């Protein structure tokens, strides 16, 4: 790799949790290394595509509000839910490329739609890659900075020709805005799922499919814990031999309350797995906040394969369009 000049992006304000992530550490589950990576894969892919990056480039994932100051002209894009974005005092659109001049501040505040947001920067964030990924795995203390970002942190961004990049990307928008996937506060989120590994051993699986659950405060990058009618059959199963697990596995510990595994989940688990939420719906679950109501609906493996296929196509190649009337 040739020498790259680095420009900086400084974090000047942060209320929430922010980490650098990419599409995760693939191929090391067998050694017990969690995949990590962005929670809402589709939003992250769009953010990168909008600034002309590979979809696998490292970017900032955060909850809450953040302010970033550019030390050099950059092209950035903010995605996730439907956040409020400002450059200095002026509101600018999310899900669009933004020309951020040197010395200007980018402010992102959540609206009532969305919980996890992304800031992609032209060229991607430069930091330590571990086992093929810059995703921060906080529990393991590795990947990028190996810890959450703090106010005062400086992120390094490779030097790119911003003028020429801007002329290529300035009119890009998503063909349909994935931010609209995020349900309104009072809308029940429906998660499509196939049966999980232990579905047959859980006699009251119907409870899980017929009831409404609520996302609890004990939800983080490892898993989203839900509250609602417990599956009493789970406590009778006791400890099971540990099986390989993944994002989207709906584990039911002995207390009967489901946990939907997320990006930093352990690679193996000894709890009963009742359902498996399809990949496109995990990113949407990541976007709802504690208190949000969810329910599960069963889909066949064939349907899940179809849904996963079109989702993977979109993640690898986000559907972008040109906004004709967009003037900067």
């Amino acid at each position, binding site marked *: 790799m040739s020498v790259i000049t680095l420009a900086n992006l400084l974090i000047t304000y942060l209320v929430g949790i922010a980490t650098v992530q990419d599409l995760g550490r*693939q*191929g*090391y*589950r*067998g*050694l*017990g*290394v*969690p995949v990590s990576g962005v929670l809402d894969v589709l939003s992250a892919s769009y953010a990168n595509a909008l600034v002309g990056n590979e979809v696998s480039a490292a970017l900032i994932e955060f909850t809450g509000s953040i302010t970033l100051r550019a030390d050099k002209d950059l092209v950035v894009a903010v995605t996730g839910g439907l956040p409020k974005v400002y450059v200095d005092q002026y509101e600018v659109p999310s899900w669009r490329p933004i020309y951020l001049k040197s010395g200007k501040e980018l402010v992102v505040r959540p609206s009532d739609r969305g919980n996890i947001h992304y800031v992609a920067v032209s060229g991607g964030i430069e930091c330590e890659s*571990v*086992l*093929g990924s810059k995703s921060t795995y906080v*529990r*393991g203390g*590795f990947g990028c900075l190996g810890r959450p970002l703090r106010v005062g942190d400086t992120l390094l961004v490779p030097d790119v020709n911003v003028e020429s990049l801007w002329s290529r990307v300035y009119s890009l928008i998503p063909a349909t805005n994935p931010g609209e996937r995020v349900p309104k506060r009072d809308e029940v989120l429906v998660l499509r*799922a*196939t*049966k*999980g*590994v232990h579905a047959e051993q859980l006699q009251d699986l119907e409870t899980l499919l017929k009831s409404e659950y609520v996302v609890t405060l004990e939800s983080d990058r490892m898993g989203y814990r839900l509250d609602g009618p417990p599956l009493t059959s789970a406590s009778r199963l006791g400890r099971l*031999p*540990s*099986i*390989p697990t*993944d994002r*989207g*596995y709906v584990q039911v510990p002995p207390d009967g309350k489901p946990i939907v595994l997320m990006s930093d989940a*352990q*690679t*193996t688990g000894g709890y009963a*797995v009742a359902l*498996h*939420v*399809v*990949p496109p719906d995990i990113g949407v679950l990541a976007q709802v906040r504690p208190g949000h109501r969810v329910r599960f609906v069963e889909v066949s*493996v064939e*349907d*899940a*394969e*179809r*849904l*996963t*296929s079109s989702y*993977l*196509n979109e993640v690898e190649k986000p559907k972008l369009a040109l906004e004709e009337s967009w003037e900067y």
Partner: protein
Amino acid sequence: MRVHEIKIISSGGYVIHVDICRDVNLECVNAMHKLYYTLKKELSSFVKELVSGVTSIALFYDPRRISSDYLTKKIRELWLWSQQIELSEVYKPRRFVIPVSYGGELGPDLKSVASWAGLSEEEVVKLHTSRSYTCYTLGFTPGFLYLGEVEPRIAAPRLETPRVKIPAGSVGIAGKMTGVYGLESPGGWRLIGRTPLTMFDYRRDPPIPVAPGDIVVFKSITLEEFGKLKGLYVGDYVG
């Protein structure tokens, strides 16, 4: 050899779970390893990632390239084939020696294992170091080794209340399995000692050289030797 039925479950549209057996024992684990390395050899071009559990295997596939139906048929064929061969035909297990300082502060549960067993601490150490263990799998946290089978007399059950923080390198017992914590993590295994070796180094690729099916032997060392070996990478230690 009589080959039993396996259970194959597809889920999520991109994962196939293969349940080899219900109970964790060496016979089941050997059968799993034969299938694991056979699948690795035969299906690696179709499958994104192959992961073993303790009694099961997961295949992560791209549904745009291959279907669960096709893979399921293929896995059934390969299961029958894999059980007719020796493991060495598909994988040559390596042998690792792990030096351990037993008891004291580094092995706070050696006492409770000894009293559970009705043996002296020295006898527990002797039994723990007298066997070659098979690496069942890695998982739970980065570089955690699941090893077995433990001599029944010292197969003490896991702690009722797990510890919040266990130092990297801790060696524990949980029933018929013994294990090594690759990184600091929470855990409920009874800690009988600690290795000075660095078991998991994320700046290396792979970060731990031990693989499912490999053989691990423990060797008792003094505190002084522990100090001298501190930080040496497991792959560089010659017992």
